[in-house]
């Protein structure tokens, strides 16, 4: 067993992935997703799972102390369960550490979101801002994305066309993804004529909310070998936060993604990220972010992602497929579930095609500067 094969992703389950899910409560959604994941590898959570990690934020649930309502539907009643207030991909990192620390062999990571149930989305999001210095100006955070987009474009000489091209590409990629709620066949022109929310941010550049639940099962080397013939190895993990103070950030680059990727690449022994991956699933919840993240992750040099996108390199059949799933722009903004949703896409894609290595990156969304990165290998 080498260092890169200590922990495997052995199965994943999901439910929802639509704009509304009235037929299922969040508990029932979790039950469905968990069952799917457990059935794939034939495990009984009551007897075999050592730890459960749930990734949610109270205010998106409308419940305080969300972990109270997590155990039963995952098979976690009277088991070692916890909640982290972080993206689902970070849950995978915590699970990775639990396994390599020796305290667990089988870990379940879950995250869900029911945006359709959050009527006061705007108010909830505005509560993430500093009340004195930020909230009076930044509303629900969208203006912040606009400010950042302008600075990023200015410093790197990025045209609006390249940002719009991200939308065209991802929405088209999503057309064949049954989990996509917002895919479409759009022209560049149509995207750029979309309503301007806060210049230069247009409505078409922002991923719209959806409901979903995703469950991942992680296993130690020995356990993985005993329950599946197709483990996907987690070869590197990294996570990083910049600052909650908006004024302290460098808008020209996604330092948080850079920091997270450095840690993961070191672990996975990746020297040249631009050549290492067959495809990448990275955050595009705001279209320009895909470009910014590509550069921060070292897939393209600083300022070059826009050009590559316009040339078609990041298309599904291009030299560097980026977000072949359709990304958040197609799947919908899934809050803390986003990272796990992308992991699900990467997991399935790695198994379907003759690929060997993928990168998954998540960003916690406005107004945060926090990212998690996972390197997967077959």
């Amino acid at each position, binding site marked *: 067993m080498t260092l890169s094969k200590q922990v495997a992703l052995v199965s994943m389950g999901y439910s929802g992935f639509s704009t509304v*899910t009235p*037929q299922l*409560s969040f508990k029932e959604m979790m039950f469905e997703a968990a069952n799917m994941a457990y059935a794939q590898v034939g495990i009984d959570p009551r007897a075999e799972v050592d730890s459960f990690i749930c990734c949610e934020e109270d205010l998106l649930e409308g419940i305080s102390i969300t972990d109270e309502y997590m155990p*039963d539907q995952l098979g976690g009643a009277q088991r070692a369960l916890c909640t982290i207030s972080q993206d689902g991909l970070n849950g995978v990192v915590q699970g990775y550490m639990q396994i390599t620390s020796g305290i667990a062999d089988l870990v379940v990571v879950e995250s869900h979101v029911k945006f359709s149930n959050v009527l006061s989305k705007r108010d909830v999001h505005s509560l993430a801002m500093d009340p004195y210095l930020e909230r009076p100006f930044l509303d629900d955070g969208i203006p912040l994305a606009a400010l950042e987009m302008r600075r990023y474009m200015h410093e790197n000489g990025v045209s609006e066309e390249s940002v719009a091209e991200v939308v065209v590409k991802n929405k088209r990629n999503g057309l064949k993804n049954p989990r996509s709620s917002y895919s479409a066949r759009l022209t560049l022109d149509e995207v750029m004529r979309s309503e301007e929310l806060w210049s230069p941010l247009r409505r078409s550049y922002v991923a719209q909310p959806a409901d979903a639940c995703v469950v991942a099962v992680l296993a130690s080397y020995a356990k993985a070998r005993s329950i599946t013939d197709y483990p996907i190895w987690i070869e590197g993990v990294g996570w990083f936060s910049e600052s909650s103070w908006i004024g302290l950030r460098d808008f020209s680059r996604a330092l948080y993604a850079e920091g997270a990727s450095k840690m993961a690449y070191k672990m996975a022994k990746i020297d040249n990220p631009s050549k290492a991956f067959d495809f990448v699933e990275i955050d595009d919840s705001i279209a320009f972010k895909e470009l910014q993240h590509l550069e921060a992750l070292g897939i393209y040099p600083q300022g070059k992602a826009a050009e590559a996108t316009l040339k078609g390199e990041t298309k599904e059949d291009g030299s560097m497929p980026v977000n072949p799933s359709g990304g958040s722009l197609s799947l919908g903004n899934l809050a803390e579930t986003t990272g796990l949703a992308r992991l699900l896409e990467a997991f399935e894609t790695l198994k379907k095609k003759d690929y060997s290595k993928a990168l998954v990156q998540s960003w916690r969304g406005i107004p945060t500067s926090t990212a998690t990165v996972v390197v997967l290998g077959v």
Partner: protein
Amino acid sequence: MGRLDAGWHGCNNGEVKRLKFAGTPISPEEWRNESVFFKKEEFDLKYAWDTGYAIAKFLEGLKAGKILGVKCNRCERILVPPRMFCEKCFRKVDEWVTLRDTGTVNTFSVSYVNNDASRREKPLVVAVIEIHGASPGMGILHVLGEVEPSRVRVGMQVKAVWKPENERVGAITDIAYFKPIEVM
């Protein structure tokens, strides 16, 4: 293995460095007199939770004047409040069961405060009531009425007092309260 090293003392020199405990307490008077700088904001966060299948059916049952439970054939427990799956066996439950609307008080309390810590005008008796017809220990939370707080006992038999049919909406409050059953 990890190690803890926090607070109080210096490391290798063993010298006692008494560190100051930071913090500036604000007295209730300072708060009331607004002598410190603060900002008041009010938020009304609205949510519309999908009840899902199990709770929806339970609430429909309440509207019809019935307390419903579910049965798991593997552990043979009858569960209330009903749920789509048995958490012990981790499998879907098998059937719905109509339970009685009487129960046994498992534990109770007399509340003198509201949930914002203000004093209540009249004390409220709350209890966990094991519903008859369900497995032992299957309780629900509710309030007791038509009883002197000092006379409530663990083990007391109680019966649901339903709101009139036209006032029932499909909520836990369709049962106004539980009252003691006369001793035969």
